[in-house]
């Protein structure tokens, strides 16, 4: 079977041979470009792309997503049982407009995604059978898997996918997909046939597969009327039986799900998933877990990790991520419109101390650029040192010789943010800053998260560095900040390099570009970013195969429980 291989794959393969990129990066790149994992692994192991195309008779990426968690179960999988989780049950209407991972957790068992990024960072087709990119990365073809049925019996076709693209790419819908997919206009999305969609991009981009796996990208049918609680229809392995905001939801296994388990019968293994919210501050989660009422706690915080890290009855899987708490400063407001003031504040950060206080040291140090070690493009650029004398000097230069008083909005529900805020408040006094804390519930923080003059915002992990940079630090074509640009910082040079990085497949080149972005953001960006967090999956020993995703997605399709 002859199969066309993207020329960039050949190039990447060459780089792999020369040791310029790691095997994992090569796999990521080549699968991104539509090669099957099997072919890519074959390429990585031996030979040239031409050989792979002819010698590996694999049809275009058709494997079910590979899940590697603990030691693979050897026929010990048990079917049945109920998994009970402590989490938050958020109000959800349109999944495309969801802006919280926790809001997507229950629903991702009902609706599914076109692609899936596995724990190693490799993105696979999921509802898609395969995808192909043109040589210039401007035309992408998405080929849908045939025969997948929604839980109302209808088959998933290109019309449904078109409807979802329409939602994502209409600005007024206010989906975060709109900002993420800024390289694509709705007019560039075409249905070729019932199972094929062609995307014509405005600018070259390699992120399409990864963006399609983002949490707001769950596929709803074309008949969707705007409220998923009124029409809980999706292709997922579970059906939503009950959904009580703030209290509970109940998911029951479907009998006719399209993917098979290791035993050859349809997934899922579990009969039922019950998710409960125990109050708004989640203080009861730990006692519920310890008294055996729940099997796992979703998105556990560091206090929960500390209480359970040595528990004999608990599996704790830690994953370093790009998730973080960003101290963002409004670039369009006093006093942060002066770059010296921002730099002064950056010099007031005792980063090791903040990491120790906020996360018991469970994370990595950040240098005020939103690129983490978990991103393949990471460049190790040292942060500004902790130097309060320098801070005072910078403040004087900016015209504040007597120091500055500022108000910091912080969500009291996020202990990491509170610890960070308090540590900074103490250390910054010597640097000339009087920081008054304005703690508030997270719900209130989200209401005004882009408005505060100074605030600490929760950011989740993104697979590739330019993905987050494009969402949070860019402007609209008219120069105004994009919807999620909370710091209102728009920098022409930064935007230009970012656009170039987004269209650069070559990892080495992209890493170089991202390095420039890191330096610009460290020096001029109006954010302080002292640490990146590790995340954990924490569950009872009798639960198996929970995927340890760095993005904190909770995926229980292949999870099973001892009888």
């Amino acid at each position, binding site marked *: 079977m002859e199969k066309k291989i993207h020329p960039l794959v050949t190039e990447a393969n060459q780089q792999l041979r020369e040791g310029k990129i790691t095997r994992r990066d090569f796999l990521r790149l080549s699968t991104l470009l539509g090669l099957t994992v099997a072919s890519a692994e074959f390429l990585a192991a031996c030979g040239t792309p031409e050989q792979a195309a002819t010698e590996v008779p694999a049809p275009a990426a058709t494997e079910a997503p590979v899940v590697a968690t603990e030691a693979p179960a050897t026929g010990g999988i048990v079917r049945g049982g109920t998994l*009970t989780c402590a989490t938050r049950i958020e109000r959800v209407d349109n999944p495309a407009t969801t802006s919280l991972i926790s809001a997507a957790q229950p629903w991702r068992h009902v609706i599914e995604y076109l692609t899936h990024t596995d724990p190693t960072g490799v993105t696979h087709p999921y509802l898609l059978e395969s995808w192909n990119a043109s040589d210039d990365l401007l035309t992408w073809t998405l080929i849908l898997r045939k025969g997948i049925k929604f839980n109302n019996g209808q088959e998933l076709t290109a019309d449904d996918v078109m409807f979802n693209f*329409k939602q994502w790419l209409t600005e007024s819908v206010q989906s975060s997909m709109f900002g993420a997919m800024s390289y694509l206009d709705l007019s560039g999305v075409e249905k070729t046939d019932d199972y094929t969609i062609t995307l014509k991009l405005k600018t070259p981009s390699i992120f399409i597969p990864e963006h399609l796996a983002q949490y707001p990208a769950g596929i709803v049918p074309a008949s969707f009327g705007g409220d998923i*609680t009124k029409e809980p229809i999706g292709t997922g392995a579970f059906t939503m039986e009950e959904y009580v905001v703030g209290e509970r939801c109940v998911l029951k296994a479907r009998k006719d799900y399209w993917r098979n388990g290791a035993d050859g019968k349809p997934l899922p293994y579990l009969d039922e998933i019950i998710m*409960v919210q*125990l109050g708004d501050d989640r*203080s*009861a989660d730990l006692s519920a877990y310890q*008294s055996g009422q729940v099997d796992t706690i979703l998105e556990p915080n560091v206090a929960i990790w500390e209480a359970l890290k040595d528990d004999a009855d608990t599996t704790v899987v830690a994953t370093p991520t790009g998730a973080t708490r960003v101290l963002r400063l409004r670039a369009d407001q006093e006093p942060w419109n002066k770059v010296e003031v921002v730099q002064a504040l950056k010099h007031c950060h005792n980063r090791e101390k903040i990491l120790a206080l906020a996360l018991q040291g469970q994370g990595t140090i950040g240098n005020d650029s939103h690129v983490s070690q978990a991103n393949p493009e990471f460049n190790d650029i040292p942060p500004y040192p902790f130097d309060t004398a320098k801070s005072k000097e910078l403040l004087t230069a900016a015209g504040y010789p007597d120091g500055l008083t500022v108000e910091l909005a912080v969500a009291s529900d996020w202990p990491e943010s509170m610890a960070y805020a308090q540590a900074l408040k103490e250390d910054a006094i010597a640097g000339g800053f009087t920081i008054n804390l304005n703690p508030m*519930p997270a719900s209130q923080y989200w209401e005004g998260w882009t408005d505060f003059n100074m605030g600490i915002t929760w950011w989740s992990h993104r697979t590739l560095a330019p993905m987050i940079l494009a969402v949070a630090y860019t402007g609209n074509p008219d120069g105004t900040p994009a919807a999620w640009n909370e710091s209102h910082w728009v920098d022409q040079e930064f935007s230009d390099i970012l656009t170039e990085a987004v269209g650069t497949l070559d990892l080495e080149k992209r890493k170089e570009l991202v390095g420039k972005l890191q330096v610009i953001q460290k020096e001029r960006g109006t954010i302080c970013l002292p640490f990146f967090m590790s995340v954990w999956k924490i569950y009872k020993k009798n639960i198996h195969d929970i995927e340890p995703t760095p993005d904190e997605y909770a995926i229980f399709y292949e999870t099973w429980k001892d009888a």
Partner: protein
Amino acid sequence: MARYIVRRLLTMLLTMILVSMLVFAIVEIAPGNVARNILGAYATPEQEASMSRQLGLTRPVSIRYISWLFGSDWQAKGEIGLPMAQIISEQGLVKNAREWWAVAPNGEHLQWTVEEGKLYKLVLLADGNTEKILDESSWKAGEDGDEYFWGVDTANRAAKWVKGSKDIEYRLDYSGWVESTGAPVEYIPLSKGLIRGDAGVSLRYQAPVSEVIGRRILNSFILAALAIVVSIPTAVILGLIAGLNEGKLIDRIISIGGLITAGSPDFATGILLIMVFAIWLKVLPGAAVFTSADALWKNPNLLVLPVLTASLVEIGYVLRITRSSVVEVMNSPYVRTAILKGLTYRQVVTRHVLRNAMMAPITVIMLHVNWFIGGLVVVESVFGYPGLGSFILNAALFKDVYSIEAGAMVLILLAVGTQLIADLIYSLVNPRIRYS
């Protein structure tokens, strides 16, 4: 007595009306713009103004107050000329989706919509779908020469359209902001009003407040009732024993025990109980994990620790009041007389001491019933128990106005009601108190 009760009920009604005005005014004055809260930071002033109109916030305060209390369907009926009907149906996971329709004389249920300047009526069919019919003949001539039409729109509002109007309505639809010209110039959001059990739609849950709050009231009521049933008799009996044995060892033990339970904050007691019974001994659930709506009935164990935590504080408090009241009564001249008269100890206690000594505890208990229903926020938080206290707290944090108002009204009704009951019990316990 009957006259007294009637009089009390009337004062209660008056109190409730005054309080409702106060609650409404406080929420009204409180900072924060409801339309902006819903729309978020990126709404334009036009969108905000449109949303305010759609929520009926541009109507006069007095009319809004009356609508909140008594509903607005009758106001809409006056404008439209047809009676309103609320149809409750099940839509997916939403068990009680509420829709308002106008009822035509021939029994048809109608809504209207204006598309591209043309008026259409939507007739509800038996299968739940609607039939769209051009209804251009329904425009009425207004005094200023414009043609207008009052009808029910598709979003539970009465609306006034003006023919040829260029007004733009910004509607937050599933597909986002829908701009439609020829939008209504006036809206009356339809509701039945608090008195008729419709407290509006919660901005946080997007569900009727009455539905959410009803569930929470029931949960809190169960918790409070059990806590009262456990704590009050225990406290009164222990207080009596201690008071009758003033200064003896048993009095000392009970008094100090009461001091300890009353003195320990409920979150500390709760966590201690969880650590002992849930985590160490593993005999009781440590959190209120409701895996189904009827979890409390299927697994009453869930209630043991929350009830115990709430009771312990209460026991200590009530027993100390009972004890001091008993001690005081025991030293009073009439008890000495009764003893000198030759009554048995039992008769003295049951006929003279108990009744007189109960006055103070009854006042405290009745005040606490109210506290129990709404004030168990800490216990609810420790156990993750979905009760009324945490509901009101979070409504206030979210500025969920209709929930705050409904929650406040429920608590006030309880306070006034329990006070009435307390007064009635006084007169039963102590015949010297006669009301007329």
